[in-house]
């Protein structure tokens, strides 16, 4: 199966952000907000990384909505560019 057909089948978008979600407490503050969104299939934060990378697997390519959600809980969030 090639990459294109795989994407069509599952329609997943992986969105990558730089944040300051650096601790378990911080993570638990943003968790309810992200968990509530039906377009978010799963998300993880790599707290070991300097950029505390937030990785979201979503049904829609909507980075701005994720940034707004994280900002709403008073954490920083910016798309990590390629």
């Amino acid at each position, binding site marked *: 199966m090639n*990459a*294109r057909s*795989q*994407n069509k089948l599952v329609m997943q*978008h*992986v969105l*990558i952000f730089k944040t300051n979600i650096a601790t378990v407490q911080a993570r638990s503050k943003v968790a309810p907000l992200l968990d509530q969104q039906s377009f978010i299939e799963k998300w*993880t934060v*790599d707290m*070991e*990384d*300097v*950029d505390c*990378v937030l*990785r979201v697997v979503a049904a829609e*390519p909507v980075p701005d909505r994720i940034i707004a959600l994280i900002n709403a809980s008073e954490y920083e969030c910016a798309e*990590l*560019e*390629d």
Partner: protein
Amino acid sequence: MRYRDENKIQAIRESAIEMVVKDGLENFGINRLAKAAGVSPATIYIYYKDKEDLLTSISTEEALKMTRATLKDFNPEMGFEEGLWIQWKNRAAFSLDNHQSVNFFEQLRNSMYKEKMLETISHEFHSAMGSYVHNAVKRGEIREMPLEVYWSVAFAPLYSLIKFHNEGRSLDGRKFKFSEKIMKETFDCVIKGIMK
């Protein structure tokens, strides 16, 4: 929209293995890996959620690669001697051609990745090897013995030769180079020792 880029994945995998071999697991990090692989950290995060996810995935793939190479042309119904010779040839070829993989496995020893890796390969590997040994016992070609005894006689001699070869020297600093002739000579001794 981003699509899977197999070239980038390959570059990430190869650099990750190289980094672990060179600097060990403790010094491994996504940002350093990104630099070494010539990709951005964001690209790595597209494919892996963190360092653990990446190392688990790569070690499992490497282990499957090794298992497949080891079991190539092998079938558990084979006679004992024929089957063991195929095993020797496959294992020697893999060890000699895949230095990086072998050194990578060496680094994973005593880590959590080793456990996960074993879980993945044990089914495929043990079902083939287990029934091969069992069949040989049933046919009366070898006697029943503890696994450790079996492995130490059946395979450890081969790995000694490979170790000598990799170091370029054997005992007392004697120069050593691996060859199929040497392998066969050792194999014949093993067969004499292990078969009834």
